[in-house]
């Protein structure tokens, strides 16, 4: 079945997107297992292979884990989250959003070219949803100068082209 996994194409594959400079790294992390969860409490996710769990709303969460290793209609992480969290609903959104990671001392500044949200007030582990360059995104902070941006694949090319242009003076 490995052949089928090879048929996948991430939204920014072959677009030449990516920056690796001393003050800024930008790249797509394709095929992450992403699960939207509705739950009163923060879903238990760390024990089941998830790397991050972002709060999107009072009872709304986004769990981000390693890519699935087999072709599937629903990533296994969704089922694991569902069974580990009584009463929570879980939806596989792995192909509904792709992940763009930004890191480096200018990462926050690059986002500020197109995002009106005050990211400096977002703590590590915190997440905001809003508009980035006209596209709805979720932005999670993973470190002092590291972010994960979750964007719909349909908007990914626009976002990538815009950020690449905006980053010219921030490399």
């Amino acid at each position, binding site marked *: 079945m490995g052949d089928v996994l090879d048929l996948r194409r991430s939204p920014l594959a072959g677009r030449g997107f990516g920056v690796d400079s001393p003050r800024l790294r930008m790249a797509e992390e394709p095929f992450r297992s992403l699960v939207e969860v509705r739950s009163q409490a923060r879903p238990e996710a760390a024990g089941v292979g998830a790397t991050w769990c972002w709060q999107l709303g009072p009872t709304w969460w986004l769990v981000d884990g390693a890519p699935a290793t087999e072709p599937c209609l629903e990533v296994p992480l969704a089922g694991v989250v569902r069974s580990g969290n009584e009463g929570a609903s879980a939806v596989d959104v792995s192909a509904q959003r792709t992940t763009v990671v930004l890191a480096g001392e200018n990462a926050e500044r690059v986002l500020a070219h197109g995002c*009106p949200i005050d990211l400096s007030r977002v703590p590590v582990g915190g997440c905001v949803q809003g508009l980035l360059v006209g596209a709805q995104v979720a932005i999670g902070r993973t470190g002092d100068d590291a972010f994960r941006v979750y964007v719909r694949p349909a908007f990914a090319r626009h976002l990538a082209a815009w950020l690449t242009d905006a980053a010219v003076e921030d490399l």
Partner: protein
Amino acid sequence: MSRRLPTGGSRIDRSRPVTITVDGVEVAAYHGDTVASALLAADRPLLSRGIYSGRPRGVMGVGVEDACAYVQVLSGGGEPMVAATTLEVHDGLAVERIAGRGRLPAGDDTTRYDTLYGHAEIAVVGGGLAGLRAAVAAAEDADGARVLILDDGPALGGAAADLPADSAAGRELRDLLTRLDGLEGVTVLTRTTVTGSHGHGRLVALEQRPHGVAKRRLHHVQAVGVVLATGSHERPLVFADNDRPGVMLACAAADYVTRYAVLPGERAVVWTAHDAGLHAAVELADAGTEIVAVLDVRETMAGPLAAALAGRGIALHLGAEVTGTDGSDDESGRLIRVHTTVGSFDVDLLAISGGANPAVELFSHPGGRTRWSDEVAGFVPDVPAPGQVGREVVVGAAAGDQDVVPGWRETLQPPATVFRADAGDPELVFLDPHRDATLADLRRAHAAGLSSVEHVKRFTTIGTGADQGRGFGVLAVGVLAQELGRPIEEVGTTTYRPPYVPLSFALLAGRNRGELSDPVRVSQAHDRVAHAPMEDVGQWKRPWYFPRSTADGLEDLDASVAREVRAVRTGVGMMDASTLGKILLQGADVGVLLDRVYTNLFSTLKVGKVRYGVMCGPDGMVVDDGTTARLSGTDWLMTTTTGNAAAVLDTLEEWHQTEWPGLDIALTSVTDQWAVVAVAGPRSRDVVATLAPQHDWSAEAFGFMDWREAPVAGIPARVLRISFSGELAFELHVPSWYAAALWDAVEEAGAPHGITPYGTETMHVLRAEKGFPIVGQDTDGTVTPHDLGMSWAVSRKKTDFIGMRSLARADARRPDRRQLVGLVPLDGSSRIVEGAQLVAHGADLTAFPVAMAGHVTSAYPSGHDGRPFALALLDGGRDRVGEVLDAVDDLVPLAVRVTGPVSYDEQGARRDG
């Protein structure tokens, strides 16, 4: 002859010579010069000409208050009408002088423009002493507060930077800058002009970045508190021939000495109405200008300034005025003589200063009101905008504070208010040099019966130039008050609106231009279909049609669509339907919600089945339609029209959260999760069977409106038997990262059957032949399900659904409502035009009003039979089948016959293949 002084110049760097080109002639300058200072240094005072009068004009001011000195930038991307007093020189800069108005550069603007959003607890506008005091206090007080200082100059300090370093002001400036240096959280933006205060702490600012990749950056600053320390603008005085090169504002003239080491005149008369003009006279004299007379409109004068003039042997004439000027006969038209009430003087500089206008523009933008102050002799902030209360303070000269520079208040003599309306030939008294508007124009406005300052502004154009009245605006108000015989406080100022200085549209757009002008959404199969002409559907790009190359060249739209339609009706076609909106509904109460939002019953839908539904608003009008599949006991997948996906999700959220929060429901958009390829046509079953041979796809095993999970070409998938064409059809749903692979697999499996890709136009033809309406095209917010002939989809069993009460109104059941019908041309071949009005056959189109019976909502040149047809909304249409009407487009009638909305396979015999 150079007017550059051998030493001094706080803003220039003599070690960095710069050469610019003006009208093709090289001009030597220093780094830090403006175009205005460079030209004054080169003794070339003529900078532009009056827009109508052609009169020569020079530099009057030293910053944004200048109303005369505009140039066209030729180098770089070019820029029309830039203020020479704020345009900094750099090597390669080429400008030319202009006559009043600039011109848009030909060709694309290739300049890079940037945008940046910023946030601060305190934003301080203006980095002079008053602003710096506020900034330092805020930063020292509030732990961790972000303080942002924005200043339009190349360095902080404002007016204090032009005073001697060992003066009280100079010492305080040095102290403030030192303290600022040691403070955390302070950000300084220089060369940055705040152009708008938009309320709620939002400022927009223009940063000039001579060394940046992006030459200009637009800052959007969100602040909790705003300190306006915007200073003041020097005000001129009026007299005849007040617009010649060589007539300058007095403090501006002195600033050219201290900032740029440029002596603006050899011999000068100074005329003032306040102390600052006397200060300027002393500074000019000390720099080497021979001051032949100082005139002060005030009757008495005592104190150190009078003594300073006397000590330099300069004659001070109290109660004196300038009455006119003479200019040279040559092209430069420069000042050669000043006439005053105390005699005439041959000079090359007339330095005037009528007072200081507090810079209240940003205070006024969000709605702050000003009042006239006799003490300040200017309009000062009075009542802040309601939304700015508690957010905004005005400090320093902008607030009318005359003690910003330490030590001045002790010796201050009250300023005089002088707005003479009898200042010589009114045709030669200019009240807005940039607009070439004069005292005579103002009098004509008055004679025409205008008395409101806003009306006079529009009649005379005074204050509408590029300087927006910063130079002459208040002066013109004062003169108008005199003309009207009313106090100036009653006349008031015109409304100040953003932007404070001109902004180009390209800067406002930033990088949202061309390809990036608006977010473009593309399906994940886009690369497979990108060769097709695209149709914009909302932000989506969708393939419109797939023209083939023929011996006669590439097919046009009509030929391509005819071929695509034929393929689906007789063989098999495929289309990328990924853009359909998709919403996953989860929870125990989804059936309850669907019963309320759809007009028909959904809670009875069994797992494994799909149902079509219509949604109405509370007013009973159709807002969307689509299908919903029941995936499990708790999970349902809804599809919406491409353009309505977000609106439908929002509506569902609204009903759920605001009316029925007790329902156990979670809504998730999965539009982008699933790529969808529709396979349609009598041969579609063969294609699906090839792709998923492990399942039985017969009508018995997999009926209309069934769905099942089944790997397609090995790709995990859901297969739905839904048809939007009336033909046997399948929708294949796969996780969107398999979109291209799925497209390829369907193409390959369909090749033996001649599978034909089709676009949105063919989809529209196919559905229109079946009488399926498109919400938003065949409906317009006044159409009920009954009007569409869809009473079958409106439940009579349910106690309520959204819109039910409205549909029960008598009006919703009127037999003469506009109803969906079909149309065919009477001649069988003429094309019906979308949007055409339907009128009685043979109606006289010249006898207004012509009674309208309806309109054409969709029209196509050919259906399966090759003949034109259309859908229309027609008054009482269902009872008018067979009737002949005229469809009128652009006054040309076309005879059409009314048909039922379904023009193909009325019995629905084809959906099982």
